[in-house]
């Protein structure tokens, strides 16, 4: 797990107040919704708002992409990285 993935896993835990869950309990490729971590759409909104605030990014809603970005910790990290790179340029 790279540093950004770890950071995001910790952000998920803090934002959603997941008791008794540690970063190690959320493997980067584990689905966040449904079968995996079991988050729901309210969690998704809360997480999206927290990510936008923390990384100063804007997550567009008008595409199917949003759904894909929020699949796992790994996809979220890749998305945040891409947004940062885009801003840096």
């Amino acid at each position, binding site marked *: 797990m790279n540093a950004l993935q770890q950071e995001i896993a910790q952000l998920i835990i803090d934002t959603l*107040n997941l008791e008794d869950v540690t970063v190690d309990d959320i493997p980067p490729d584990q689905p966040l*919704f*449904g*079968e995996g971590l*079991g*988050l*729901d*759409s*309210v969690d*998704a*909104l*809360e997480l*999206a*708002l927290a990510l936008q605030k923390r990384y100063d990014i804007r*997550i*567009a*809603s*008008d*595409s*199917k992409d*949003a*759904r894909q970005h*929020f699949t796992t910790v790994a996809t979220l990290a890749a998305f945040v990285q891409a947004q940062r790179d885009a801003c840096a340029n």
Partner: protein
Amino acid sequence: MSEQVVQERHWSAHKERGSLILMRLTAFSVRVFGRRLLTPVLYLIVLYFFASARSARRNIRQYQSYLADWSGNASLRPTLGSVFGLFIAFADNLLDRLDVWRGRLRFEQVTLVDPSGVRTRLLHSQHGGRGEILVVTHLGNPDVCRAMAELGEQVPLNVLVHNRHVAQFNRLLGEAGDRSMRLIQVSELDTAMMLDLSQRVERGEWLAIAGDRVPLHDGRRVMVNFLGHAAPFPQGPWLLAGLLQCPVNLLCCLKVDGRYQIHLDPFLDTAHWERGRRDATIQGWVQGYADHLAQQCLMAPQQWFNFYAYWQPAQPEATDAN
């Protein structure tokens, strides 16, 4: 699941299908025969419903006796006549809804009780400003509010509905003349749609969502005291309001002395909770909402059209998080 829970089928499991068929049939019949001819037919259908649906009768009886005990008004105690009267009021309610959808109910026929100008804020919010949340109640006739909100002007309103037949309902509303309301099915809300809603609120659009019905597969519910007994209410509207940090208003439409009254009441200036106090804060809001709802029940005691078992025990839904 206990046997009781299995027997008391959840409202969403059976209600919409029946009401969709009934509405479609009624919509067709009203067009062909007119309201006057249809009224006795609908009364017969409701009479049949009254005679055959034992659990619906029992649930209404329970509501009436809770209301009487809670208010200390013995004249509200259930009798065969008062239970039947509520079923008849339901028939009138269906006929009124069709009038609304066909545009037969005009603004002059409705009294707006809106002392703090919530409707004005709604109409102006699209020209700058953030959106707000309307928590809607199933007491009375919420369809009237929708029609009135739309009348004359395009209103930036997104209505979240608990309905598995939204597509068909949208088509039926289209046929019946209900135009631009954006209906969104609660069970289809996912990450992208939630983000979309939050951005709509930023742009000044409002959200309307029912505060008095608990979705089937949703562990996010809270038990509060309603008419003297514990009943489950949804957390969803309040979570949305808190996460989006927007004001909350309560919306209800009651028929009083043969005239519709739309009640718009500001409820929270900004929905906000302290860190770690979320559940307790929401509990407090929902209790306040339930108390408000109880007062409105007293204004229109015969317009409670929840025929399912409203006061159900809390169900632990460990596996339903998805």
